[in-house]
């Protein structure tokens, strides 16, 4: 009987041994720089999940490009056009990190998918703060628009900076 109970326990519980994380809230901010002007666009509409298995954790965060607000609808519609958001509506961030690294600040590669193009950014630093069942993760990194085959919008024939810094803060809960 004990044997049966133990087996049943293992059978029912093992599938959830792999821990999962849910993105509770987030703030993603990108900055576009131009010779005479700097523009910030932000969103809090990202969704994300994380799963840890066999000592490795994968986190996926995605947000529709249309959810970014730069304070000017004309500029935001132009952003949709140059990033081909109608064809590739989501910008995705994918991070794989050893489970043990989640306990403190860590560095990891980040795979960014934008405009249908994937780029891996190497050794991006992440700051981790634990608070009970939740933990906050923040990071700053930059992408190059040309690497994503994005035609840079121009103002008075001068294109915006190729480099776009991204500021990411998030709160995750363990499921």
């Amino acid at each position, binding site marked *: 009987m004990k044997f049966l109970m133990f087996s049943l326990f293992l059978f029912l519980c093992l599938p959830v041994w*792999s821990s999962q994380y849910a993105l509770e809230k987030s703030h993603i901010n990108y900055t576009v720089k131009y010779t005479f002007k700097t523009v910030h666009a932000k969103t809090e509409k990202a969704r994300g999940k994380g799963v840890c298995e066999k000592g490795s*954790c994968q986190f996926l965060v995605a947000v529709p490009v*249309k959810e970014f607000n730069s*304070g000017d609808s*004309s500029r935001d519609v132009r952003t949709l056009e140059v990033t081909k958001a109608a*064809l590739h*509506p*989501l910008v995705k961030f994918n991070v794989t990190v050893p489970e043990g690294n989640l306990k403190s600040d860590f560095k990891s590669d980040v795979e960014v998918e934008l405009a249908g193009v994937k780029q891996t950014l190497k050794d991006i630093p992440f700051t981790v703060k634990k608070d009970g069942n939740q933990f906050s993760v923040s990071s700053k990194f930059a992408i190059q628009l040309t690497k994503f085959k994005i035609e840079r919008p121009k103002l008075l024939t001068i294109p915006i900076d190729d480099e776009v810094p991204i500021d990411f803060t998030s709160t995750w809960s363990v499921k």
Partner: protein
Amino acid sequence: MRVVLTSIFIVLFSQPVMAQSNLDRFKIPLFTAESLDVNDLGFGKEDTQSNFKLQKDLEERTRMLQNHQLWGLVSVAAMGAALLSGGEGNLPPEHPFLAGLALGTYSVSAYYALAAPDRPEGASYGQLNLHRWLAWIHLPGMILTPVAGYLAAKQYEKNEPLTGLAAQHKNIAGITAITLAISAALVTFEF
């Protein structure tokens, strides 16, 4: 020992199939590092599916609004030149030509703005709102200015003092030119 071995056997060989069906029953998705996908994040179809027509419309919209901007700037320049060429009493010969150029280029610019595909859903915000609002001033102004100018020219020809709408030609033209210039500046120094 037999218990442990049997348990391991159950775990190793029963889980992939049985656990999945078990979890499906309780609506608990089983994520693995390999399967984590945006479809697991609960986005609606409109947020994940490609829309080729929308992309084409966005590109067409950009092309037409760039033309709108270009012709709008030419219109501002022509309007400014027409204002400077206008005189009291004697009508300089270049004034009607420059005024006509301003009206023509304004019409072309307006066509591109009105014919451009609409922006995707959602209200407009930021400087675009002011740009659009100013059209309610410079569009009627652009219609009234040549009418008032024509009436003023007729009254000058008859050596009559300017009255009614004709007397307001300069004021209407001035207000129209200023609002048009502000409207153009709002979108010219923006990307």
